């Protein structure tokens, strides 16, 4: 809020526009929608000013940088509403270039005209202008030519038209609008074709919508469909709302790329909108015709209780994981996630689980759940074989149905910050810190 006041004063001072003339309610609404769209996530460089752009994004053809969308002349300063609308919903920049589809304009095509006006009001009058020139992409010629993108856009971007209801339930309808539109959940959670377009853009568009992605920066964006094994079948609507609002639910905690989505976007949504999102997601059917609820199997828990850790990976689990996630795999409510029946661990591709075992993660603080919990990384402590053993153990215990993984799967995911070490550097007794 403080930023907003400063921004307003700055604008008044420059004489550009009289903020007082702009509808404050509209700006507030636009701010809320910008949160829903999580614009800040991509349009803010690391350590940079909000919305000033410069965040690098790796693509298969080279690195591109997000743009400045503050109301400075280096940003959207001279954009009319139509210019803004062309970029956001149609994927065409003011200079006529087609935007790289890292900008999810195929999803934003769903946004209503009214919401676009609110967003425009916010970006013009609610955001502090930052003078920062956009950075050219590192994509070499001829791949840097933008004209092929135009063809891509014609082929894959949907027509912009005001969103039309497809459900009778206004709550589900609202959820669909948010998920398929500004929320652009499919950008990560829907598989992409070879030509990089999302295979489907809405629930009505096919069963691949939100069916989970291939690894992206070392994480899987899991299926949000009704499957119990690796979708949201086992989650209640209330758990989903809690998860999006606080980053945690009774049996789960956010990690990987979704942490930023909760921190920057979802926690700001109203309970009504979160319920709408949850109810809509829960309306997506399972893709697996043989989908079954998780059946807890107590065999492993009993063996560990009796001191038997002879099963593959069990000893690694006992020495590294059981303290928080328990020998029975149930974890501790709202604090340490359950592993038994947890769909995120049973995806066909085990990348996420391997990654978090190696690197750990921190559950972010949110307004209504201020505590952070950090899972330490175990890359330094465990060999590829040990990680493979314990990941296979987790994916196959307590009734879980994930396939085992190999040491090779682990080796491929280790980056420079995830090497095994002697640990000698950890043993420096320095007394007082």
């Amino acid at each position, binding site marked *: 809020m403080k930023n907003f006041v400063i921004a307003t004063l700055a604008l008044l001072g420059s004489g550009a526009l009289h903020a007082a003339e702009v509808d404050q309610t509209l700006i507030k609404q636009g701010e809320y929608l910008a949160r829903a769209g999580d614009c800040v996530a991509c349009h803010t460089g690391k350590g940079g000013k909000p919305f000033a752009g410069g965040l690098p994004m790796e693509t298969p053809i080279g690195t591109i940088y997000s743009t400045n969308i503050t109301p400075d002349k280096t940003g959207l300063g001279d954009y009319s509403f139509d210019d803004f609308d062309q970029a956001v919903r149609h994927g065409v920049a003011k200079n006529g270039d087609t935007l790289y589809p890292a900008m999810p304009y195929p999803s934003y095509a769903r946004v209503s005209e009214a919401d676009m006006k609110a967003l425009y009001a916010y970006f013009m009058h609610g955001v502090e202008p930052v003078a920062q020139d956009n950075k050219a992409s590192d994509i070499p010629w001829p791949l840097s030519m933008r004209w092929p993108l135009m063809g891509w856009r014609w082929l894959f971007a949907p027509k912009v038209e005001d969103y039309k209801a497809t459900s009778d339930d206004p709550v589900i309808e609202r959820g669909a609008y948010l998920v398929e539109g500004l929320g652009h959940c499919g950008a990560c959670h829907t598989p992409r074709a070879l030509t990089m377009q999302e295979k489907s853009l809405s629930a009505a568009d096919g069963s691949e919508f939100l069916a989970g992605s291939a690894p992206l920066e070392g994480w899987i964006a899991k299926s949000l469909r009704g499957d119990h094994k690796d979708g949201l079948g086992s989650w209640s609507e209330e758990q989903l709302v809690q998860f999006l609002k606080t980053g945690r639910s009774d049996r789960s905690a956010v990690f990987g790329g979704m942490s930023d989505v909760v921190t920057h976007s979802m926690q700001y949504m109203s309970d009504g909108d979160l319920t709408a999102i949850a109810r809509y997601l829960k309306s997506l059917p399972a893709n697996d015709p043989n989908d079954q609820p998780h059946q807890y199997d107590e065999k492993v828990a009993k063996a560990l*209780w009796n001191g038997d850790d002879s099963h593959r990976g069990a000893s690694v689990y006992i020495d590294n994981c059981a303290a928080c996630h328990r020998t029975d795999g149930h974890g501790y409510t709202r604090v340490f996630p359950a592993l038994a029946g947890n769909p995120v661990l049973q995806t066909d591709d085990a990348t996420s689980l391997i990654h978090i075992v190696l690197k750990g993660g921190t559950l972010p603080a949110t307004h209504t759940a201020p505590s952070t919990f950090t899972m330490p990384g175990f890359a330094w*402590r465990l060999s590829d074989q040990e990680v493979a053993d314990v990941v296979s153990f987790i994916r196959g215990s307590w009734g879980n149905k994930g396939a085992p993984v190999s040491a090779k799967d682990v080796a491929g995911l280790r980056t420079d910050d995830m090497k095994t070490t002697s640990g000698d550097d950890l043993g420096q007794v320095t007394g007082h810190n």
Partner: protein
Amino acid sequence: MSDQDRDNPRREFLRKSLTLIPVVTLASTGLGSSVLQAAPETAPAAAAPLPAPAGVNAYQPSFFTAEEWAFINAAVAQLIPNDAQGPGALEAGVPEYIDRQMNTPYAAGALWYMQGPFNADAAPEMGWQSKLVPKDIYRLGIAATDQWAKALNGKTFAEQDSATRDDLLKQLEAGKPQFDAVPAKIFFNLLLQNTKEGFFCDPIHGGNKGMVGWTMIGFPGARADFMDWVERNEQYPFPAVSIRGERA
């Protein structure tokens, strides 16, 4: 192992040689005694260096001199001997641990309030009142003890037989010898304290190799999760684990 075995002259010879050829130091992994007893057969004196057994990590002291190193090795072996109960301080790498500690702020007295004036003769219930820090105490205490031992029969502490070494340590513990530079009791207490630290610390500090100390008493190490075992009057079943993740 009987007392006779422990006083095996070959072993005594080797122990003395250690000061000159630290590559065959006992302060290695749990292979200690058997390796050394086998050594004469496989490697006659003055022959090519012993092939280091797998996993044996020859530690080179960085603080202690060769003479001091001989003392440390001989003394800790008396304080926590290799016996029927299992490996002792040498097998646990206690000398390496103590040497490594000498390079920490602790050994320089940096963790203590060390401003004067000092009253080294204060009553014991007044706590530590000496100006000496661990580095000084080892340096002065070892020299004084060796000099005292030599005065008895011309041999340094490390050159004495096991029974004599035990006796000398008991006298140090009781504060019998009057050393000018450092009270014998202070020296002994520090040595004993550090020896137990090296026997029972996490292996990350250089001691407790193979977690022999923890295994002897049944301490599970760095697992630190007993939710399933709190109420159970049973022996805890899992072996010790170190911070690095090695299992005993």
